[in-house]
């Protein structure tokens, strides 16, 4: 049984300007110890998916219209607030793109680190501080005994991100949700943080949901990859299959837009058109308006996401009918 299994999640925002279908029927699951990557362009619903699981959707304007998120037998979207509290923040933790959104600027790091321990575990303050120091060391902050008493602004961006990871991991969660934790960082610091997540995951055996728009990060970190577009899942597969044998035209287009994979001196490949407007009802495939393979049937009705091979699902009708094969247009060997 998977550790987390999300089924048909729909999270809409009812605003004065209309109805935003931010997440529109998303299903996926994560096994213990597994890393799931969620990729997609800005606005594709990656963060809203994570926030829905964590109970962080502002309601109103947000509303979870349907779906379930079963975590070890408990539906996080329907359980009692007390049950939810005993899971979120302890067995599931989240780290955010901007560390300052989850660090309190007026509290010393020590206070913030021990807070989840004091809430979820019956530890004395001294024991909790001991655990906090261990965690500082684990995330590679030297001189922890002194620096644990710093305020957030006394750390650099990379260090703050480490503090946040320490905070998320201090309760030894079974699932870590990381929403673009390295996007704001330099590549050198990103490499350190990714190494850290990899090591801690191995040592603690936790599952990770890693949100990013960087396919390079996905390649090195994730077992399973889910590609989102317009609030829907376009394709899910193992990392190697996503890169070497994608089935959905959007996955292929996303890959072809990576500058590193394109020969220098030639015009870069671009996806024509504009990202989808989720405030408009989309009847067919969300990607159809920009898809070079789209046919009438793609616009007629919403394609289901169906497993084409074990562990590989996609939502392209034409690929399923064998009318197109996008994988042959993808050649990662071209990397120079």
């Amino acid at each position, binding site marked *: 049984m998977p550790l987390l299994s999300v089924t048909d999640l729909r999270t809409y925002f009812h605003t004065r300007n209309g109805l935003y279908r931010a997440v529109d029927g998303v299903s996926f699951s994560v096994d213990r110890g597994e890393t799931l990557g969620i990729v997609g*362009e*800005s606005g594709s619903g990656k963060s809203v998916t994570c926030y829905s699981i964590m109970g962080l959707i502002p309601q109103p304007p947000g509303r979870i219209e349907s779906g379930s998120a079963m975590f070890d037998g408990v539906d996080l979207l329907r359980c009692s607030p007390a049950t939810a509290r005993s899971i979120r923040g302890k067995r599931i933790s989240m780290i955010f793109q901007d560390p300052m959104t989850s660090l309190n600027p007026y509290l010393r790091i020590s206070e913030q680190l021990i807070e989840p321990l004091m809430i979820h575990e019956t530890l004395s303050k001294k024991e909790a501080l001991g655990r906090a120091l261990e965690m500082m060391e684990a995330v590679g902050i030297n001189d922890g005994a002194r620096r644990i008493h710093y305020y957030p602004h006394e750390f*650099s*961006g*990379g*260090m703050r991100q480490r503090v946040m990871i320490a905070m998320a991991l201090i309760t030894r969660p079974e699932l870590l949700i990381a929403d673009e934790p390295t996007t704001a960082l*330099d*590549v*050198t*610091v*990103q*490499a*350190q943080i*990714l*190494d850290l997540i990899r090591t801690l995951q191995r040592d603690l055996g936790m599952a990770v949901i890693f949100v990013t*728009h*960087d*396919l*390079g*990060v*996905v*390649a*090195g970190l994730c077992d399973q990859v889910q590609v989102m577009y317009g609030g829907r899942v376009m394709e899910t597969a193992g*990392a*190697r299959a996503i*890169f070497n044998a994608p089935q959905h035209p959007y996955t292929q*287009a*996303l*890959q072809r*837009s*990576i*500058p*590193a*994979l*394109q020969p*220098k001196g030639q*015009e*870069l*490949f*671009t*996806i024509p058109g*504009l*990202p989808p407007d989720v405030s408009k009802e989309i009847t067919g495939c969300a990607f159809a308006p920009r898809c070079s393979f789209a046919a009438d049937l793609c616009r007629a009705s919403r394609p289901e996401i169906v497993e084409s091979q074990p562990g590989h699902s996609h939502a392209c009708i034409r690929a399923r009918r064998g009318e197109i094969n996008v994988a042959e247009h993808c050649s*990662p060997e071209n*990397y*120079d």
Partner: protein
Amino acid sequence: MTENILELRDVRTHFPIFTGFLVKKQTGSVKAVDGVTLSVRQGEVLGLVGESGCGKSTLARTILQLVPTTGGMVVLNGRNLGEASREEMQLCRRDLQMIFQDPYASLNPRMTVFAALAEPLLVHGICGKSEVQSHVEELMKLVGLAPRFARKYPHEFSGGQRQRIAIARALALKPKVIVADEPVSALDVSIQAQILNLLSELCTGMNLTLIFIAHDLSVVRHISDRVAVMYLGKIVELGPALDVIDRPSHPYTKALVSAIPVPNPDIERTRKRIVLAGDPPSPIDPPEGCAFHPRCPHAVDRCRQAVPPLVAAGPGREAACIRLGEIS
């Protein structure tokens, strides 16, 4: 023979640090740009890369004379900008334009696209009132915006379209040099590619010189002819883009290149990475000698003693490391 349109000679830009509540006293300085010498050829695309805080934006603002320089000179078309009179500077401004990371912040939210593009044309007397309409339309077409959008405001556009407006505005005065400070960093990959294509096309078509600042090396590799790598206010490596990024010679460039995740699971999972320890040091109190030595896997005692100069490191290449021969 193409000549150098822009020359930086030992340029330094330091920001004073004041402490004290009633009596302010200068107690130090941030050496944001600290001795940069660089020649840029007409029509060339020069990429400028380096970690956050290494001084890329300050160097850009120094070139545009938007911050006072502490030392050295910026020479545009043979004219030392530091000594230019106001009138001369006004003329130089036409030749030298800047594009910023956040097009939203650099466009006036209360100005329509038409007004934003007409303003520089009229202020600098590029055309009379009667021709403004056609000039603006031409500019919009140049950057791939339909002229029917002329009466819209910046907030009515997507990020990529706003960056197109900012580029059109920079092009209005037919500049010779454009300094673009992270022009695509805030955009999604698919939109990034459109803007990069546009910039490349404009450079070739108009023989524009472009200084392209970014922290994404694969983007810089794609668009640039040459690349300069900065570390703590100094250039540590310079050379043709493909050489520098595919075969870096300075240990810092090596680490930087090695940190880029490769979008291929088979390579990414097996390749050897150089993971640097620690954060970049502070430009207030840079390390003695080579500023990179505390993080450098090859550092020896000699590296702590003197600041290494940029020396020849292959055809058209330079690097600032005294151990180049020993570590390659």
